[in-house]
């Protein structure tokens, strides 16, 4: 017999309690960034280019526009204009993603910090989490600071016995992830996984000491992917190469290729300063803080997504 399922109810008391929790978390996040010299920005939700990820599907918004899958490109355009520290909390949209940890519309916290790399960003991420957990007085069991770290190769070594950066095989990598690695991460309270294979660099900087890895990390709390961060790629030529690779790869997968964002590429041509960026799923953070097992458990409107037939 399975354990009693969590209540995913729409009782007023539940909704009022969630309003309270969500407000505390959002207030703590904003306080952290203000204290650390950040400016809060907003960027368009309807965009021409929804990004370049092979495996992220955008929701069409009509007139050739899409709902933003993340505010990355617009926030980097602000960094190109000279912004030093910016953050925002915004809805992001990804089609075809629905499950206990996924929902088509979710709340994303994204921030950029000039003059630092991904190592410093790991520290900053830990600082943010420490601030949020202490000011909200919600500390998930087993969560300790500084956050433990392991490289992605170490993670795969422990979980499945091979090093993705040395023998890259995309299909094997993702299948192993779904079958073994993700369940393995569920046994760890919290861990920063860093140095992803270069094939998964997206818009991160490839390491100058080892071309097979990129300066990217993710934080997992009990197997739940909380954030994804990079030392940001700054080289204009390399940006065009990555956009073209992504478009080709999407075409091969039979997916629509998105036109590159020329405004973004022009801004990068003019100069993107060295910086690190991080994107964090706010709903998932609240799940981790409250011990919720389903993303709709932290939603104020779970009834909108229950049992889609």
């Amino acid at each position, binding site marked *: *017999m*399975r354990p*009693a*399922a*969590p*209540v*995913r*109810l729409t*009782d007023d*008391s*539940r909704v*009022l*309690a969630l309003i*309270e*929790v969500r407000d505390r978390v959002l207030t703590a996040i904003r306080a952290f960034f203000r204290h650390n010299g950040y400016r809060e920005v907003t960027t368009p939700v309807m965009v021409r280019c929804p990004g370049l*990820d092979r*495996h*992220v599907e955008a929701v069409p918004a009509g007139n050739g526009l899409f709902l933003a899958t993340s505010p990355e490109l617009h926030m980097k355009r602000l960094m190109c204009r000279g912004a030093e520290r910016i953050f925002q909390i915004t809805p992001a949209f990804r089609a*075809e*993603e*629905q*499950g*206990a*940890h*996924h929902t088509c519309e979710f709340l994303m916290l994204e921030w950029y910090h000039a003059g630092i790399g991904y190592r410093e960003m790991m520290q900053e991420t830990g600082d943010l989490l420490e601030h949020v957990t202490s000011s909200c007085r*919600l500390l998930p069991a087993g969560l300790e600071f500084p956050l433990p770290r392991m490289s992605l190769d170490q993670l795969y070594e422990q979980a499945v016995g091979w090093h993705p950066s040395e023998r890259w095989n*995309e*299909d094997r*990598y*993702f*299948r192993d*992830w*779904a*079958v073994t690695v*993700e369940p393995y991460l569920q046994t760890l309270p919290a861990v920063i996984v860093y140095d992803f294979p270069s094939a*998964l660099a*997206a818009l991160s900087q490839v390491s100058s000491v080892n071309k097979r890895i990129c300066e990217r990390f*993710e934080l997992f709390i009990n197997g739940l*992917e909380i954030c*994804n961060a990079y030392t940001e790629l700054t080289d204009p030529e390399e940006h065009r190469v990555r956009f073209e690779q992504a478009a080709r790869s999407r075409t091969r997968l039979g997916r629509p290729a998105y036109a590159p964002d020329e405004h973004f590429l022009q801004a990068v041509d003019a100069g993107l300063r060295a910086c690190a960026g991080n*994107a964090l799923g706010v709903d998932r953070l609240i799940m981790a803080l*409250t011990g919720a097992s389903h993303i709709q458990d932290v939603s104020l409107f779970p009834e909108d997504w*229950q*049992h889609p037939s």
Partner: protein
Amino acid sequence: MLDTSALRKNLKIIIDGDPWIVVDCQFVKPGKGQAFTRTRLKNLVTGSTMDRTYKSGEKIGEQARIDECNMVFLYEQGGAYTFMDNNTYEQVELNADQVGEALNFMTENMNVEVDFYNGMPIAITLPNFVELEIVDTEPAVRGDTVSGATKPAKLSTGYSVNVPLFITSGEAIVVDTRTGEYVERVKK
């Protein structure tokens, strides 16, 4: 042929000629990676289970042609569960494994749907919402409404669900049988 987009709990599907039911399915997708669905399947004839992980879009099998018949649960005796067709008075028996998780929410005289495959009763499906009585739960206590807005409550079937603090023993509640979750208090 069905693909992964059809996958959901309680889907009945023919894989390599055998009828299976999806007892658990989880969508797994790294933020920047391929999507998969992890499933646990139960063979509707033998009761054996297997775990399968499908890549998004992958073909999984044929829609099972299952005949559904509305019947009433009569009684359980020695691990055999007897159901009756109210029109023909025909009775069929299923074992506990075939009744499965429905045991958590099924009471005598409940109307259920019995599924037949090749003329054999193989599984039952409960109504989406059923009313059940709470036989045991802690009295409501004042506490932290933020983190502890629920408490466990034992149903007349013996199964335990989480309910809001205001629910008391002896009350009836509506349970969603697909998720096993409390829905609302039955208005008196």
